């Protein structure tokens, strides 16, 4: 049943459609865009046209597309955040970063005071010593929060955590353990820093479970959608999910609600399936697709992270001489896996952080393309942080896209300059300029909750290329113009998800998905791009004002 046509006016509409880059009016009907242009051009649309001028003072952009983030962003906010950078919660609350140990202790004390059960464990997240001058969090620090309640702070990387003394006592890890993941303090006892799976297994069993595992709830999904709205995001991935039956049902029911505010793109985790299982599962999942739910992609993780020294690097490896990282898939197994998905017509999203992992992925894709040339496969390398120009040229030749981790320049740029990659390679970290010159289709992303969700911030990172300490990394050669950075978080990201026919630009026929901004990103000083306020979103014509708290 056809509805009325609504024409929204705006101070400016930035369309990301080169044939009509800007406009003042957009007409919407049945959740889709009817026309983009001037007020006069809308007059011919017919009698059932209603004008809506509520956004007359605002700026509309295509709804942002986050090409690499995780539903875990929606789960984190049940726990206190103790990271160094500011974040915005799903309620729209600005949660200031904390840069001192005392500040962290204070926030944890407050959180503990709000808990009713004095023995329930207190979990928090977001800490990274690299962001507070290398200062570690010790068990003695956390004992100031409580000596009776278990306290556990999960790092921003999610691979390391810190606990207080009572946790170490309950798990018998305080003394006499030489296992590799239990870091020793100066006193010869455990410092409270725990790494690796053994300590993790023991602690979560002793504390009665990991608050971030277990079944997803409708509230988690609602928070994810709310966080997206707060940041102007209307299409968002969940880029690594086992997609158990419970999750499938939850995504199904959430996306069928007419006012659900995001188009969700889950990627099935390759690690939990054989290619044969995954191919069959994707086929059945696709039948559940609706306008707000887009199954079809597979995520494959090849290596670890650069700052965790688990990424696989080509010669000469890590700048500080650390041993090379870890393979999560055997390189010789990769061609078989990639070819299976490639032949099945599935688009792969391949996590490669280090350049050796990138090379291995490109080898596998090249072999698959040779065995069965497939036009427009759009296999996408995710993160792809260390690729050099030669690797981008291979990507171009093979039809491979890249989704580059621009936020890393800000959060770990200093660590990459000083420790992991050294000055030269750090200058071409997340080489957006190279990708653009060579013509590799690319996007930029946050990997939320690893770094904060926020495409304007991500775009700012790609434009400024400045680390959190203020160090500039390769701006002359790799920085994007504001316009190109905005393209990377809209039509560029949509392209990597094969959704560029539906979202990512404001043009006739596409979903009526808009980010509603208070200012024009193309006219503010580029260094303030991240500070533009997001009013909310419009998704399929539904207006969603971002919550503010």
């Amino acid at each position, binding site marked *: 049943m056809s509805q009325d046509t609504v024409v929204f006016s705006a101070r400016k509409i930035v369309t990301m459609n080169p044939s009509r880059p800007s406009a003042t009016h957009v007409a919407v009907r049945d959740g889709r865009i009817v026309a983009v242009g001037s007020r006069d051009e809308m007059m011919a649309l017919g009698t059932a046209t209603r004008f809506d001028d509520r956004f007359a003072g605002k700026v509309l952009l295509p709804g942002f597309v986050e090409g690499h983030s995780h539903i875990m962003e929606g789960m984190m906010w049940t726990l206190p955040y103790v990271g160094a950078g500011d974040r915005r919660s799903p309620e729209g609350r600005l949660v200031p970063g904390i840069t001192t140990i005392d500040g962290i202790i204070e926030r944890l004390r407050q959180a503990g005071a709000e808990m009713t059960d004095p023995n329930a464990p207190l979990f928090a997240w977001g800490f990274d010593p690299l962001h507070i001058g290398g200062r570690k969090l010790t068990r003695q620090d956390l004992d100031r929060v409580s000596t009776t309640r278990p306290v556990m702070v999960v790092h921003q990387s999610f691979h390391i955590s810190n606990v207080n003394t009572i946790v170490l006592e309950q*798990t*018998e*890890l305080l003394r006499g*353990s030489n*296992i*590799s*993941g239990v870091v020793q303090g100066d006193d010869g006892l455990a410092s409270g820093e725990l790494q*690796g*799976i*053994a*300590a*993790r*297994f*023991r602690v*979560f*069993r002793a504390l009665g479970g990991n608050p971030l*595992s277990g079944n997803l709830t409708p509230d988690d999904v609602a928070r994810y959608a709310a966080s997206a709205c707060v940041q102007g995001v209307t299409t968002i991935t969940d880029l690594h999910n*086992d997609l*158990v039956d419970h999750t499938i049902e939850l995504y199904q029911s959430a996306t069928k609600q007419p006012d659900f505010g995001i188009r969700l793109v889950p990627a099935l985790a390759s*690690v*939990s*399936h*054989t290619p044969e299982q995954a191919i069959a599962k994707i086929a059945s999942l696709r039948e559940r697709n609706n306008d707000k739910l887009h199954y079809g992609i597979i995520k494959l993780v090849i290596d670890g992270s650069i700052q965790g020294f688990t990424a*696989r690097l080509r010669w000469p490896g890590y700048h500080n001489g650390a*041993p*090379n990282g*870890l*393979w*999560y*898939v*055997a*390189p*010789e*197994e990769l061609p078989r896996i990639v070819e299976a998905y490639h032949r099945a017509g599935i688009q792969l999203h391949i996590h490669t952080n280090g350049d*050796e992992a990138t090379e*291995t992925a490109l080898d596998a894709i090249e072999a698959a393309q040779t065995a069965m040339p497939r036009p427009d496969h759009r296999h996408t390398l995710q993160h792809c942080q260390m690729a050099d120009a030669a690797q981008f040229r291979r990507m171009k030749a093979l039809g491979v896209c890249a989704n580059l981790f621009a936020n890393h320049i800000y959060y770990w740029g200093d660590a990459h300059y000083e420790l992991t990659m050294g000055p030269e390679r750090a200058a071409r970290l997340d080489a957006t300029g190279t990708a653009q010159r060579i013509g590799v289709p690319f996007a930029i992303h946050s990997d939320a909750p690893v770094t904060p969700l926020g495409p304007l911030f991500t775009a700012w990172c790609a434009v400024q290329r400045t680390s959190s300490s203020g160090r500039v990394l390769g701006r002359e050669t790799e920085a994007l113009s504001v316009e190109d950075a905005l393209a990377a978080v809209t039509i560029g990201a949509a392209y990597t998800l094969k959704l560029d026919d539906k979202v990512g630009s404001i043009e006739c026929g596409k979903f009526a998905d808009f980010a509603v901004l208070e200012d024009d990103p193309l006219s503010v000083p580029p260094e303030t791009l991240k500070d533009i306020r997001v009013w909310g979103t419009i998704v399929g014509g539904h207006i969603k004002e971002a919550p503010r708290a």
Partner: protein
Amino acid sequence: MTASPTPVTVIGGFLGAGKTTLLNRLLAAGGARYAVLVNDFGDINVDAGLIASHDGKTMSLANGCVCCSIGGGFLETLGSLLDSGQRFDHIVIEASGVGDPWRIAEIAIVEPALRLGRVVVVADATRIGRLINDPRVGDTVRNQFAKCDVVLLSKTDLVDETVHAEAKCAVLSIRPDAVIETTANHVLTKICEIDARRSSDFRADEVEPESPDHEAEFRRWAYRRDGEFDRRRLASAVQELPPQLLRLKGNCRIAGEASPMVFQMVDKAWSLSPTVSDQDSPAAITLVGVGTSNLPPARDLEAILDTALAASATS
């Protein structure tokens, strides 16, 4: 009442080394209630008649064993196995082909419900020599051996003696003290049985009085002498030891060496290495052997090793 901890054996080894083949044998053999955690069911090949139930994640066998797929997450799988309340004689965990088995072994060290048995790494005799120098995976492969107890050399029937010897050398180049066995004769089953019974069978520092073990198809035997071995005589004596003696390990003194040495022998491959700690041995030579049930009498074995003693010490 606290149940005694369940022993855990971790099976590591690079992709294609033959881990699954071993696990298939172990599951089919039964004999004990094994819980086997595997990376994927795809290659698990158990006689259909043996499968009592199979829900896609857990396969229960008529012989009391279960096989769980790690697919949904290793820690979650192990956690639910422990939470299930089922008791197993032994838990066997297959590490990923690119994983470090020691990382898993550490779980058995810190988790009170578990006790670490052996860390076993399977090495493909046809290509281990190349793999350890491979530019992409050499470091991963070498690291898998860093802390294992036993190396099982697989596919030895596919190689000639030269390649077989080269494969052993490759392993010994990473771990000069490695205990190397071939995968013939259901070695894994035996290892698991030894682990399940006692953890001290093969520790030189915990030598027990010699006692034939009536429970199983193994015999243990201890050799103690004052004095010291002559290195060359020892090499000859080892060649004379009967094939029923599967392993021999312990501390000894070697003529001309200031410090005690650790001697290890498996399948006639043997090594001497400096002792890690300066422990007090009751005798200058203390070796413990494990053999099959038809191991020749202790006096025959002792006669062979006595020929290795340095002249001045022969009594």
